[in-house]
């Protein structure tokens, strides 16, 4: 059973992602609502995969992804981005994130991204 950390400041988005992931799979899910919480929770929970929102208060997803990758270069992070955030996304890809999905996404898109990252 994989452990997945969902990071998003919007409860709606966390719920959508959690529901999609748990529909056909038995993952353990942990959640963080900003980048600062995400970095701390990553160290504590050591999840297999992280889904990371970009726009968040306190600490955004770009900084959090970089900090997590610095702490664990093998971390698997999937950025959850909106259109119009291409510059920030490029920064994340250069920093070594595994994949990204663009809102609005389908259930199939996020589940296959998680499976790919788990298997790589």
């Amino acid at each position: 059973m994989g452990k997945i950390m969902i990071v998003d400041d919007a409860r709606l988005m966390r719920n959508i992602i959690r529901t999609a992931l748990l529909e056909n799979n038995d993952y353990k899910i942990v959640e963080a609502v900003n980048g600062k919480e995400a970095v701390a929770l990553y160290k504590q929970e050591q999840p297999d995969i992280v889904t990371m929102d970009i726009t968040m208060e306190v600490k955004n997803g770009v900084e959090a992804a970089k900090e997590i990758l610095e702490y664990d270069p093998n971390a698997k992070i999937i950025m959850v981005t909106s259109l119009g955030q291409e510059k920030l996304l490029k920064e994340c890809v250069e920093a070594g994130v595994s994949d990204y999905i663009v809102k609005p996404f389908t259930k199939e898109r996020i589940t296959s991204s998680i499976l790919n990252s788990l298997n790589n």
Partner: protein
Amino acid sequence: MAIQDLDANFIELFLGSVESTFSKVFNTEVTRGQMSIWKNNLSDHEIAAITGIIGEAHTGMVIYSMKECTAERMIRFLDPSMSKEFDRRVIYDGLSEIICILSGNTMTAFSENDIEIDITTPSIVSGDSFQMHMPNHTMLTVDMLSEFGTIDVNIAIKRHGKKQKNKAA
């Protein structure tokens, strides 16, 4: 500023993007209803998301307004696990996220048409028939009819001096 100052091309592009993104997010069509000049209040609408537009050649704002139950239905559609109990914070948070997705897609649609704009993250306001006054702005209201209820898209946009990047030469 008079009605003829409203940038028809901009508005058409904006509404087209709202329609196509809405149908992607909610898997349902929206149809355009009435178009009118905004009369300084949001009629019987109870909740509104206000976004600012800052572009190379445009400034203005777009306000999405609707009944609270319309916002609730949209959010419940995306998140059926949402508690049956009405929670205003969940509605604010959810509407804000939906508008961010709309705005992101709209910025990209404009960029594909060589118009660079930024759209600010929404501020959410609510209350019964609240009033807003915007001097020097003519605002156009377009009703968008959806299965969740009517969503008014209120647009005030001004074109200013600077020419568009790719058309200046």
